[in-house]
């Protein structure tokens, strides 16, 4: 919106975001696979984005920026869940998908978890989004601000390290 030749007002937040809402919601549904969680994260994303909107310089960067916020919230949620899962795993080894996949082998689960926690940020995020969030590489790439190839490589490297760590 141009007030004059020299001044450009940013588009109103609600108007600007409305164009990307469906994409964001779809992304959140895909990541969380849970209606309530997706709704929660959507609201959180929306409010955070509104609060930070004055810091966004150009409207052109809005879409990746929104995905960045949504991704960070998803990662926070995944991290909190992992922490909780860890507590649960100590007490009841067969709760959650972690222990289920390891057939109740308590030490193996713990080992795997600490190995994942030890991965570099980007690899861990890519791995979590791919294997636990079920995201496509394109979506991971958008979320992590990198190319799909780099996202794929991140998952591959992470798996390689995990394999090395658990086989020792």
């Amino acid at each position: 919106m141009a007030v004059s030749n020299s001044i450009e007002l940013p588009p109103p937040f609600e108007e600007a975001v409305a164009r990307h809402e469906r994409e964001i919601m779809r992304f959140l549904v895909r990541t969380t696979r849970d209606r309530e969680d997706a709704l929660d994260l959507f609201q959180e994303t929306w409010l955070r984005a509104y609060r930070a909107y004055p810091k966004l310089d150009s409207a052109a960067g809005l879409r990746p920026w929104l995905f960045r916020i949504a991704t960070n919230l998803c990662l926070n949620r995944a991290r909190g869940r992992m922490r909780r899962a860890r507590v649960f795993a100590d007490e009841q080894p067969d709760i959650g998908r972690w222990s289920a996949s390891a057939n109740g082998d308590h030490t193996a689960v713990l080992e795997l978890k600490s190995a994942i926690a030890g991965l570099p940020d980007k690899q861990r995020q890519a791995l979590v989004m791919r294997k636990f969030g079920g995201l496509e590489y394109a979506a991971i790439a958008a979320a992590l601000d990198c190319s799909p190839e780099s996202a794929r490589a991140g998952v591959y490297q992470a798996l390689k390290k995990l394999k090395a760590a658990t086989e020792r």
Partner: protein
Amino acid sequence: MKASHQPGVTEFADGEASAAAIDEMIGAAHARLVHDFAIVRRPPARVGVVESRLGPLLAAESPRGLLALSFLDHSDGGATVAAIRQLFDPVEDRAVAVRAGAEIDRLLDGDASAVTGRVVDFSLVPSPFRRRAFQRLRTVPAGAVVTYQALAAAIGAPSGQRAIGNTMATNPVAIYVPCHRVIRSDGSVGNYGGGVDRKLMLLRSEGFKVDRGNRVPAGAVYGHWLSRIFCRPDCSAVRRAERRQWIIFGDAEHARHAGMRACKLCRPA
């Protein structure tokens, strides 16, 4: 956030949802957002640009009052908008600028009431010192000036003339906060953010007849703020009274117009 320890057991187990389901969820999310959004929402600021007799002006108005007025040829309008954005949601409204332009036209034609009567919102001035300076400055009437030094003293900083100089340079609401009415102690008009020519034009149209050397004119009188008495510059009362009390009128007429009476010692015209 709801804690679900069993991911993947709800209706979106495959991570896909139909377009209708997404739309329904967006509606549901917005229904829940209404309350929270009302809390964090920034107030609107109406922003407009107008071509005035003083050149292109950017004006912005909040619900509380006039927020910004700047000369676009002497300032970065984008930076002004960016500053407004931090606290307000800017919306375009040219009428705001048109109204300001009309009020400034009346000022240039000798009627300052529209400008002085306007409520100013100092939201863009975070420093309390600067706010005090601007508020005090608004009480200096058209046709009068103060020195940087006197203004500093008036707000409790007797040696803060430099700080006042810096403050005036950041004035977000030009003209309405009359930073053109602040001059140097040596009697020269000093600088102006919108260019010295504009400062001279504003002062002259307000009735403060700056002389050829851009200095305080010969007929100027000193008005004492508290006692409402005005004197010749060489009056013994001027030497005795506190510096911060003096504002300078271009002539006796304007001092009388501001509700002051002539000194009985020096008897200014």
